[in-house]
């Protein structure tokens, strides 16, 4: 129970830190570029939406900073994120929620797949030390891990789009389509997702393989594995339930830390493919100096990562009795 409370406390603390970063950044930057953005809004919007923006960026000088800080928190939690300049006159919330499913579908699914596949490959390559899997994958992934995600995305485009014409150039679906729940549309969405998904998968799987392999090598030399062998348990049982189960624990914690890297890479992959997800919208917001949209997206990405980390904490708790008892 103490473990749960501590992790929840950390969740809240990080969330608070992000909100504060969001609040402080525009105020500390020389010249406050958000003021220029506000000028572009003047005369086009009025009332509450403008008020929310003024408070978020510190343009409103009538109120004290502390009052603005609290109003900003209130606005954020009640969904008053202001208007988007890029997609004027859309609400920021509307833009964010229409981009979210794309990213969850693409990045979320591939990240989970990469974690599962990488853990399995790492487990097997440590199990057969020096075998075929072990001599091919780890060195390969050391090289791949040095490749920037977006470069692999560019090369994928060059090979499969420009040269082979197998996949489309980008975007989430063909613009001749009408979005709807029919097989044609779903097939088209999957067709557009193949290449970006493959790129994210290939670049993120390596990290899991390497750490899992190294953890597994340590657990394989533990006494309890020798004990399991002496008892004559089946190799599969030893591999999964004894060595693998213990080796995966640090990897779960590692998942929390590496998730940020994966998300970072995915943003650039979305950018290369003009995929209509959160990352692509974030970069278009930056390009158009749409700070309201930009900050909300940053918050959303962070919250998504934090929720994933929290979920991993609960998985760790289920697998590791030490986390349950000691906290």
């Amino acid at each position, binding site marked *: 129970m103490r473990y749960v409370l501590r992790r929840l406390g950390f969740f809240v603390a*990080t969330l608070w830190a992000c909100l504060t970063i969001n609040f402080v950044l*525009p105020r500390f930057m020389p010249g406050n570029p958000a003021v220029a953005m506000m000028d572009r809004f003047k005369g086009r919007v009025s009332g509450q939406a403008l008020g929310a923006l003024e408070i978020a960026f510190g343009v409103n000088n009538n109120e004290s900073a502390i009052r603005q800080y609290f109003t900003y928190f209130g606005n954020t939690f009640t969904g008053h994120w202001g208007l988007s300049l890029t997609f004027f006159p859309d609400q920021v919330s509307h833009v964010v929620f229409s981009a979210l499913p794309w990213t969850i579908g693409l990045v979320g699914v591939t990240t989970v797949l990469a974690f599962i596949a990488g853990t399995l490959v790492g487990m097997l390559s440590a199990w057969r030390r020096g075998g075929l899997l072990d001599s091919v994958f780890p060195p390969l992934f050391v090289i791949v891990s040095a490749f920037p995600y977006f470069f692999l995305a560019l090369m994928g485009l060059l090979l499969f789009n*420009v040269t082979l014409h197998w996949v489309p150039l980008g975007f989430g679906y063909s613009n001749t389509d009408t979005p709807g729940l029919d097989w044609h549309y779903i097939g088209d969405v999957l067709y557009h997702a193949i290449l970006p998904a493959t790129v994210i998968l290939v670049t993120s799987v390596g990290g899991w393989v390497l750490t899992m392999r190294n953890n597994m090598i340590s657990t394989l030399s533990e006494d309890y594995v020798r004990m399991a062998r002496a008892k004559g348990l089946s190799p599969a049982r030893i591999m999964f339930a004894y060595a693998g189960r213990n080796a995966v624990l640090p990897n779960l914690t590692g998942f929390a830390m590496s998730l940020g890297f994966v998300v970072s890479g995915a943003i650039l992959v979305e950018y290369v493919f003009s995929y209509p997800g959160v990352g692509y919208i974030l970069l278009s917001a930056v390009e158009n100096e749409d700070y309201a949209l930009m900050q909300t997206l940053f918050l959303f990405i962070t919250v998504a*990562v934090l929720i994933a980390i929290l979920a991993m904490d609960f998985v760790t708790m289920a697998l590791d009795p030490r986390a349950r008892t000691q906290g």
Partner: protein
Amino acid sequence: MSTAALPGGRVSGAKAFWARFRAGPVGGLARAIASNRKATAGFVILAIFCFLAAFPGLIAHDNPQAEIYQPTLQPSGAHLLGTTAYGQDLFAELIYSTRESLFIAVMAGALATVLSVIIGVTAAYLGGLVDNVLSLFTDIFLVIPAFPLIVVIAAYSKNGGDPIIIAVLVVTGWSYGARQLRVQALSIRNRDFLVAARLRGERRWRVIVSEMLPTMTSLIVAIFLGTTLYAIVAAAGLQFVGLGNPDSLSWGTMLYWAQNNEALQAGSPLWAIMPGVCIAMLGAAFALLNYAFDEVSNPALRPVRKRRK
């Protein structure tokens, strides 16, 4: 005082120099690099890039930024990699870009390492409330996704140039190392030699700097290599999306212009491929060195030699 007299009295000249060199830290490092294949490969690649960064003019004779040639030429004897859509010589631009890319990466890596040493070791050594606060601070920075944060900060300080990029990379890159250093510093905190130093009445910072840090050198080097790798990729990404200085000479900026001109579709794919390959090679050099370093300091990870009859 610093160089102890060699056994057997004075040995003159070059012989003594080499003996001392081999026994010293530089010699040890050289032997470690030569004995590990991954380390050798990483070191050679890095050395080549350092040479290019120092003397680009020896390799490439064209002006890297002058837009004086016919645009979008295919590779030829006069233009080894062809020209860009602006009529610049691609090869010269690539070679001259080494300096800035390498400088940003190493600078950001070094500064982030210094910051993680300061925060990680301070937290472990002082303990108590300071440790709790600094650890929480480290963990928060660890889980905030770095790239979105980099983008947000860079967006507010548009076209700030290299100092801004380096600063942003340091802010987002120090936390992982700080956490590792804290764990290691905690484990050696109560060793006898540190207790002895405290009992001698040494000042706190002196104990940390001259007693504690030397024992942590290998971890600090590993952190530097890892952070620099991170900085290479992150800086390239930042410049690629146009948040760097678009007039600068660097690989990420080259990719930005290539992407802006749709180089892949427009028939000059080398414009996008070559800077990417260079980034990957430089990254691979640091990844290989880091991997080799892991093997040197953790014997369990060394490749097993198969014994067959």
